[in-house]
């Protein structure tokens, strides 16, 4: 018998990774903010992504970008940041909602929070592999 085909290991690894990520999101989504378990779980998720980013750092891909459109995105990002900071500087929060306060109300439930954790992890995974 020869060595196993290299490609055949990937579905296994991908399945295992997705399972771990789903389990992590399920558990982390059930943790309450301002607690040690929430801090530890978020730190562990962050560390996993930072390790992945460290391992991928030496293989930059060639970048093709549209300069005008990148400037437009930068201007949009500045506008969002400015609007958010302006709302943040005002009170009460119920009359001056920030993006954070809007998202917080959407992730109050366990399922909502788990989906948010999964989205956060997926974004980190995507960023780490750039």
């Amino acid at each position: 018998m020869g060595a196993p085909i290299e490609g055949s290991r990937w579905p296994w690894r991908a399945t295992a990774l997705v399972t771990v990520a789903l389990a992590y999101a399920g558990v982390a989504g059930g943790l309450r903010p301002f607690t040690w378990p929430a801090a530890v779980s978020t730190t562990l998720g962050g560390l996993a992504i930072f390790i992945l980013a460290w391992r991928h750092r030496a293989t930059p891909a060639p970048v093709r970008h549209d300069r005008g459109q990148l400037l437009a995105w930068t201007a949009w990002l500045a506008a969002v940041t400015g609007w958010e900071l302006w709302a943040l500087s005002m009170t009460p929060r119920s009359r001056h909602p920030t993006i954070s306060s809007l998202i917080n109300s959407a992730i109050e439930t366990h399922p909502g929070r788990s989906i948010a954790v999964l989205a956060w992890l997926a974004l980190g995974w995507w960023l780490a592999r750039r």
Partner: protein
Amino acid sequence: MIGAAAILGGYAVLAVCAAVLLVRACGRPGATPAAYLTTVMHHPVGRWVLLLLWMWVGWHFFVR
């Protein structure tokens, strides 16, 4: 006095602007938010700043 409707209206306008930028980026791979982030991630400092920002987002929403 600015009310919640005005603040939310501002976010809605910004969301429409993002949608317009996304539509304009159709068929132009170098004009998408992904290309923007990839450009930032290509710089060693930008890469770690963006990852720290990502970490802060997680901390902000799930811990603090």
